[in-house]
């Protein structure tokens, strides 16, 4: 696996907001690798830093954010890449679906415009060709009556349709990597199931690499090859999805898995069974950030931060002094 050059390689990435009161370190020491055509699920509870990571990859971090480390896409370093270079990559090679895609569509522009402008800003394409491509993309994401949609405004579409349009926009220029930040969270359960099925179909059809953000392990488990669990801005566990789901080695992952299994509705409170909460933004603990909530915490956990280390031959890595025994 390590022989093949990864499509995306993130190393030692940190995102902080030094100007915030108090200064916040939203992400620290994040490491991940993604091969072409593979999918990675980013999980963790609210505030874990999932969106910050998703945004940092295509250089979309908020103004005021300081991003450090290395983010390589097809071997090319993206941190401190020129704005023109990032513009050329965004949309064309890296598709992005923001958290709350309902708000991600411009209210004053027709669906057709929002689809074709992506294509036309990257390729010399006349209006008719762009329109044809837009129609084809809407069909691909299973939007009914696609021709009529091109002339409609976002407020004329249902939530599920808007989500499909957002996906179409992200994919229209055939990127090799799609980053989707909680693409199903704002939707009701049946619509969500449809979108999930669509993601599965698209992955197979388009040979797309996918970074999928979710706070629900089960959602990610069904769609992804690999899982990366974030807690308080750090990676606590990563590895093949099946292994992480079936045999979580970090106590936080185990609690997440238990919570996910006990709740059918993905919109429920997935972490209701884990008492306590993450350290407040701006608070950095000397030891393991999960120690205050961990059933296995010992003195060492509070004093010393556990490094991310391999625990199994399959590539699973865990940041814990006392990992759970393998099942």
């Amino acid at each position, binding site marked *: 696996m390590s022989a093949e050059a990864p499509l995306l390689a993130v190393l030692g990435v940190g995102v902080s907001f030094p100007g915030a009161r108090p200064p916040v370190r939203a992400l620290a020491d994040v490491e991940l690798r993604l091969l072409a055509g593979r999918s990675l699920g980013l999980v963790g509870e609210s505030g874990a830093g999932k969106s910050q990571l998703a945004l940092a990859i*295509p250089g*979309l971090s908020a103004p005021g954010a300081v991003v450090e480390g290395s983010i390589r896409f097809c071997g090319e370093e993206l941190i401190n890449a020129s*704005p023109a270079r990032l*513009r*050329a*990559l*965004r*949309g*064309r090679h890296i*598709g*992005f679906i*923001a958290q*709350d*895609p309902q*708000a*991600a*569509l*411009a*209210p*004053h*522009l027709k669906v057709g415009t929002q689809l074709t*402008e*992506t294509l036309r*800003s*990257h390729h010399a394409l006349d209006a008719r060709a762009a329109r044809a491509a837009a129609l084809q993309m809407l069909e691909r994401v299973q939007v009914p009556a696609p021709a009529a949609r091109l002339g409609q*405004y976002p*407020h*004329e579409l249902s939530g599920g349709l808007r989500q499909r349009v*957002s996906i179409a*926009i*992200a994919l229209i*220029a055939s990127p090799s990597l799609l980053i989707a930040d909680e693409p199903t969270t704002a939707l009701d359960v049946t619509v969500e199931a449809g979108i999930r099925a669509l993601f599965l179909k698209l992955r197979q059809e388009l040979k797309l690499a996918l970074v999928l953000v979710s706070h629900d392990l089960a959602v990610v488990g069904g769609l992804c090859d690999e899982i990366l669990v974030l807690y308080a801005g750090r990676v606590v566990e990563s590895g093949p999805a099946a292994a992480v789901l079936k045999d979580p080695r970090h106590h936080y992952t185990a609690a997440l898995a238990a919570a996910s299994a006990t709740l059918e509705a993905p919109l429920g409170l997935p972490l209701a069974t884990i008492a306590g909460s993450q350290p407040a933004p701006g608070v950095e603990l000397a030891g393991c950030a999960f120690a205050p909530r961990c059933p296995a915490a010992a003195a060492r956990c509070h004093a010393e931060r556990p490094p991310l280390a391999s625990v199994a031959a399959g590539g699973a890595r865990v940041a814990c002094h006392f990992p759970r025994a393998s099942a």
Partner: protein
Amino acid sequence: MSYALRRLLGLVPTLFIIVSLAFVLVRLAPGGPFDQEQTLAPEIKANLERAYGLDRPLGEQYLRYLGRLAHGDLGPSMRLRDFTVNELIAIGLPVSLTIGGLALALSLLIGLPLGLGAALARRRGLDRLLMATTALGIAIPPYVTAPLLALVFGIYLRWLPVAGWEGGQLRDLVLPVVALALPTLAYLARLTRASVLEVAGLPFVRAARAKGLSEARIVLVHVLPPALGPVLAYLGPAAAGILAGSLVIETVFGLPGMGRFLVEGALNRDYTLVLGKVIVYATLVLLLNLLVDLLRALLDPRIRARRRA
């Protein structure tokens, strides 16, 4: 189109209320149009009042006024007896519309780009400078800037005439239009800046950036149209402010606009003149507000949808 027409008809009741209120208010002030002419013999005064219908009960006068107004007749001026109010307005309105319209156009043409530029240069030097100067522009009213401008450019530098109106030549227009435009221009610049900054922080702008669009397209196509909504909404009040300011400006620069005779008219109880000009001002403001509403719908499909529902 039918919507615009419906809205236009909708102005009639509003205007009716304004006319009625103005009619009552004008009459509430003590005295009458012929009181101050000491030389007037009582029988002549009575004759005059009869000629202008002032001897009739107030209700009858009101109905008669409305009847004439329905035909577009604002009646004779009670103090400038050689003129009808329509004639006086026909002389003054083009002058006022010219300087008011130019002032509004200038405010938009300069205020919008300034505000946009400040928003794009956010918190850097240009932005700070603009914010400071516009704060000054808003704080200083036209009755201070007008004499100052006249003093500097008219008297010291002798670049432009201090006063006068020779058929509305450009050199006569510059100072009054600039003095009139400054507060509105400054306010529009600040409003545009705030509005652009607000829209620029919305999720769909980040989404536009995620598509790899050029910065120019993001600003012009994604940010600016929605940001113009609040700016357009302010145009109605802005026009009203400019009209009010033009009263002062016309006096300072000696322009034969709508403002001329209005103050004297009010002091002399020239009922028809005051009423006529108030009605014209009110109609202008109402029409402009309507125009602004229609323009906003053009920029925002959600407004159009609400309207159809």
